[in-house]
């Protein structure tokens, strides 16, 4: 099953985001070997050249490094992964608070609501 991609946005950025997320979420462990470009392209249902470009971008961000003949590996820098994960979470939370604000919930009110839901076992 190909990845769910939006054809109206550059595919390459979406591949970068998706693999980034897979790394941060631990689908690929630190130090693990990434599948080959062709396998990844086939899994995603995209052009291998586009996948190649996305992996090059991840290399530029130091999330991935390539070892000459044996392929590409996930960074072993767990501190960096942790930091990026936190950044991603922060961005999500900020977006959530903004949406709640639009609905008229202040940050305090939102937190009260979250706590109430947690107590009731709904979150």
């Amino acid at each position, binding site marked *: *099953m190909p990845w769910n*991609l939006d054809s109206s946005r550059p595919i390459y950025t979406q591949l970068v985001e998706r693999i980034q997320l897979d790394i941060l979420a631990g689908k690929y462990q630190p130090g693990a070997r990434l599948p080959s470009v062709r396998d990844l392209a086939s899994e995603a249902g995209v052009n291998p050249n586009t996948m190649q470009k996305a992996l090059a971008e991840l290399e530029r961000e130091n999330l991935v490094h390539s070892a000459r003949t044996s392929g590409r590996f996930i960074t072993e820098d767990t501190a960096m992964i942790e930091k990026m994960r936190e950044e991603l979470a922060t961005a999500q939370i900020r977006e959530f608070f903004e949406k709640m604000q639009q609905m008229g919930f202040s940050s305090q009110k939102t937190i009260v609501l979250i706590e109430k839901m947690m107590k009731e076992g709904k979150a």
Partner: protein
Amino acid sequence: MKTILECKNLSKRYGRTQALSGINLSLKSGRIIGLLGPNGSGKTTLIKLINGLLTPTEGEILIDGTAPGVRSKSIVSYLPERTYLDESMRIAEAIDYFGDFYRDFDRNKALKMLKKVNLDPSLRIKTLSKGNKEKVQLILVMSRRAKLYCLDEPIAGVDPAARDYILSTIINNYEPDATILLSTHLISDVENILDEVVFIQNGHIRMQEEVETIRDKEGKSVDDLFREVFKC
């Protein structure tokens, strides 16, 4: 990257019908290129010219620097719109046939691919479903180590699962320095595997562009752009 296909002022007329009018087109190696256009726009005519099944009325066509002929046929792998295989043949016989014809045919690769889709080589082609026939033909064509693959409507008329199989087979089996020219009007199904598109209309090239550039500049999918350009 070097040029694998070059059309210079290429025209084709059938009697009074102008199928292609003065096309100039240059395609590079190592790319997957969509040849997109409405019915009757000239897609199949162009592909037949590339394969030497038709001769140009005017202009010329060069494949890896030479006109269509024995040499070009040895480096172009062609999937026609309709099958040319004798359907009373068994799959294994079709494999022998390809092995005899083409020096670049990799028999083991073909057998492996058949096994993967659970197709028994002793089956006769005429007994296969439409989707399976299409798979067998694609396996034969993709088992050649060609420099240019011309696939004329490879996914027309097959179910979505067979489509996914066909597209992943294309991704997995072409040589990285080869080019695939794929004609279709099912754009949304193929656009994510393309590097580049060529829009053709009434025998003219309307546009030749990188697909990522289209998404980036227009903020549209190739499918949306196609609908806009070819609005009836």
